[in-house]
């Protein structure tokens, strides 16, 4: 880099900010294109997606609405957490 330090700073600002904006603009374009491409050619059917999500997170959708059970569960989790410390 040539010139005095102020002009170096100005240049750094111009080229730096320029690069940031150009890069993120390209990222906007690529991301949008990628999302559209996937939505068009590899759409996830909602049900399998949900299943995949559940598989990933070890969740299961079985209802656990018995209030007694829910109480037991939350108590067990509390106690488990308390034990951890």
């Amino acid at each position, binding site marked *: *880099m040539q010139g*005095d*330090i*102020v002009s*170096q*700073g*100005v240049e*750094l*600002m111009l*080229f*730096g*900010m320029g*690069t*940031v*904006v150009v*890069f*993120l*603009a*390209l*990222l*906007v374009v*690529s*991301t*949008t294109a*990628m*999302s559209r491409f*996937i*939505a068009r050619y*590899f*759409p*996830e059917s909602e049900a399998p*997606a949900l299943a*995949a*999500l559940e598989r*990933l997170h070890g969740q299961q959708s079985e209802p656990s609405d018995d209030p007694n059970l829910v109480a037991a569960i939350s108590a067990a989790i509390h106690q488990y957490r308390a034990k951890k410390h």
Partner: protein
Amino acid sequence: MDNLLQLWSTSGLAQMGLGQAFMILIGLLLLFLAIRKGFEPLLLVPIGFGGILANIPGAGLAYSAVENAVHAADPALMAEFARTLGVTVTDNMKDLLVAYSASGTGAHLTVQQLALDAGYANGMLYNFYTVAIASGVAPLVIFMGVGAMTDFGPLLANPKTLFLGAAAQFGIFATVLGAVGLTSMGWMDFSIADAAAIGIIGGADGPTAIYVSSILAPDLLGAIAVAAYSYMALVPMIQPPIMRALTTEEERKIEMVQLRHVSQREKIIFPLVLLILVALLLPDAAPLLGMFCFGNLMKECGVVDRLSDTAQNALINITTIFLGLSVGSKLVADKFLDVNTLGILGLGIIAFGIGTACGVLIAKLMNRFGSTPLNPLIGSAGVSAVPMAARVSNKIGLEANPHNFLLMHAMGPNVAGVIGSAVAAGVMISLVGG
């Protein structure tokens, strides 16, 4: 009696300098802020504690073996150092250290060996710094862990928010200008590399700031890291006045449309798209953004959960402990107590302010020209400071309109700001560090 004298002369009280005492108080202050006020405690507790350790007089924990030998100033050893380095011994031992750091490989190694043979050793914090920061590994590993904790869903649902993440980086470059301005007026003494490292405080992203300063301005690293983490903790105080000043009540009330569902596939592909863009355009940002994308890919791909869990827990915690202590080693009095440190602290807060303002203003601009409504309050989240800045946007939004939940909308610019400042880091390393 000799032993008593030896013990006394090696005690801290006998060797305590004013600067060291002051820096120990600074360390205690950082601990107070972290523990009592909740200022980014995960980093500021280790940094503050490391700062105290670094300033224990006579312990030399933050110095290399050669520095410790020069501080001890044994005349015979100093004479040998001087002979090896080809200089004359003076009263000012700093000259020896200058000559040492300018010496060639042979002399360098010989002086090191002389110091070690004379019983001096690298300080504990010096070793931590060498392994964790000088090698560059600790900030990169933390960035990997941050990647593994980041959800790009909101960003993918509304990619335009990337522009807000770009806008807020103007704080970085405005600060560079400020730093060179102060220098050209003779008030401070920063090189262009120093100015770039100071600017990155405006990125509001700890590991990025530490990574850049370790390359461009290692001597300023302590002040830069302390400023970056302190101001990140102060975001809920710094940002709201700026946000209120630049927006009207009507703008703050704007409700945004609910974000679309983002598929798992998009989330898996996104870090690869980002990586390829980095590879094509900005190789100097590859270490930072590469590790970030790697962490995110591990999280999203769903087949390496045990690696992703470790990256988010044991590995990032271990690294944080040593990173913090290492940063603390740069709070050693003779490096930190300098008028430049004041300049860094002042410029840092300006950087946060300008970044916030630019984010909000560009959001207003986009709202004016865009088709879908955009609440300008989410622009301020573009500085990063994840997730604090997004929470601030949400809070101010709720104040204006109790049905206005901006949190998820603000997470888009928030993570975009992480990418933006990593890109800025790459540009500066490329232009200034080469």
